[in-house]
């Protein structure tokens, strides 16, 4: 479980996060949603340690990051996997080396043992026979899958995903969403996904945190989000024509 208490983050004079408190539960796919510029990615980067909050605490299993010693930090890093928006695969390494990278950094396993694990996770994300290809030789959807494989190869306890299905076709996006949810349940890990994709919200949003202008304005599940009266949330949810039509049909039925 990850607990966020009153975190604030500013860049220059611009306050991007204005005191956000919430909890991300273990074994669930937790979604952080909101419009562009609402602070979702900054919040995620604070949680993975790329940004340091100006105020507030982020607690992993009730231990605040700011109070962790270097060994605890190292262990937390080992337990963390992250899927970046563009995949962030290392261009100079082939797929096998990319996925093996966290194992080489954190484990003392021999190469054949690491290779077994690499093939296991690549198979888990439905990728075969691409070990020797380079990131530039595979599609965007495959890159996301490889990035997921790299994120889970070390059996993380926390999985962070920054807009995992951006730039993907709807079918591939759904597959990626389902894959993230399956991995979360199989391994009973805490997953936090930043997205503004309503399909993801419907598919995997077991807990949803809605941000607006750096503030948390609503939280609930994907079942509750369509029933809320919160205007900011309804404006966001029903901003697409498709969802507007579905809502009108539902209202007419009632």
């Amino acid at each position, binding site marked *: 479980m990850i607990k966020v208490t009153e975190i604030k983050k500013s860049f220059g004079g611009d306050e991007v996060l204005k005191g956000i408190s919430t909890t991300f539960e273990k074994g669930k796919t937790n979604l952080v949603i909101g419009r562009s510029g609402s602070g979702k990615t900054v919040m995620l980067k604070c949680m993975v*340690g790329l940004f340091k909050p100006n105020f507030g605490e982020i607690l992993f299993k009730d231990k605040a990051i700011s109070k962790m010693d270097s060994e605890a*930090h*190292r262990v937390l*890093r*080992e337990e963390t996997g*992250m899927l*970046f928006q563009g995949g*962030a695969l*290392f261009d*100079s390494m082939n797929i096998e080396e990319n996925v093996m990278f966290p194992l080489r950094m954190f484990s003392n396993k021999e190469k054949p043992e690491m290779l077994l694990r690499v093939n296991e996770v690549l198979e888990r994300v439905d990728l075969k026979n691409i070990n020797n290809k380079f990131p530039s030789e595979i599609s965007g959807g495959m890159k996301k899958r490889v990035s997921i494989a790299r994120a889970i190869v070390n059996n993380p306890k926390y999985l962070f995903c920054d807009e995992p299905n951006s730039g993907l076709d709807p079918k591939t996006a759904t597959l990626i969403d389902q894959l993230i949810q399956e991995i979360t349940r199989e391994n009973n890990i805490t997953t936090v996904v930043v997205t503004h994709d309503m399909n993801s919200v419907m598919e995997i949003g077991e807990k949803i945190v809605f941000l607006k202008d750096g503030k948390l304005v609503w939280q609930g599940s994907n079942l509750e989000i369509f029933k809320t009266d919160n205007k900011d949330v309804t404006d966001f949810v029903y901003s697409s024509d498709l969802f507007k039509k579905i809502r009108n049909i539902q209202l007419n039925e009632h």
Partner: protein
Amino acid sequence: MKELVLKEIDDLIIKSLGIVAFISFFVGGVISIQTALNLENPLIPKSLIGFATRQSIILEFAPTFMSIIMAGKVGSFITSSIGSMRVTEQIDALEVMGINSLNYLVFPKLIAMFFYPFIIAIAMFLGIFGGFLAGVYGGFTTATDFTIGLQDSFYPFHLAYAFIKTFLFAIILATVPSWQGYYMRGGALEVGKASTNSFVWTSIIIILTNYIVTQLLLS
């Protein structure tokens, strides 16, 4: 780390040998011809061609001007490769994994550049060899005169001076472009700008360092 250093040696040193050999050989030849064409007084011995070629190549061309050329080749490569990693969040990925990205990316390049003096030694040899071939086979001097000039007034300290500054230039070539790439912000356009800045600043720092080292060691 060993694999990273070997890869950087391949990228930065081995892959630069071709261009270094090509430029050195022909610039050495041009220096030899230019010197010969400017020797109008019959009292000046033809051995001066070999002497001038040796001095020009060892003291300035190989260490300093080859380093300026390498600022364009190696420096731009370092800046653009690190800058691209910044833009595509690969550096963030390293940080999330708990890896000191600055150390991981820059240290192997710095170690690899310690082999840079070997490149300059090759540039010195090929520059003088090019001068010899152009001078002798171009009919400007004889092999004997050129060799006498090469051996004339040779101070071993000049070689030490050349390699001391080569070593300093190697550190500049590894660090300035790395800094430009690592701390850049923005997208693909900024990677291009950072590469240009990298070349400009590396060149400026090499020229200033050259002046200071020359003042300190030779004056």
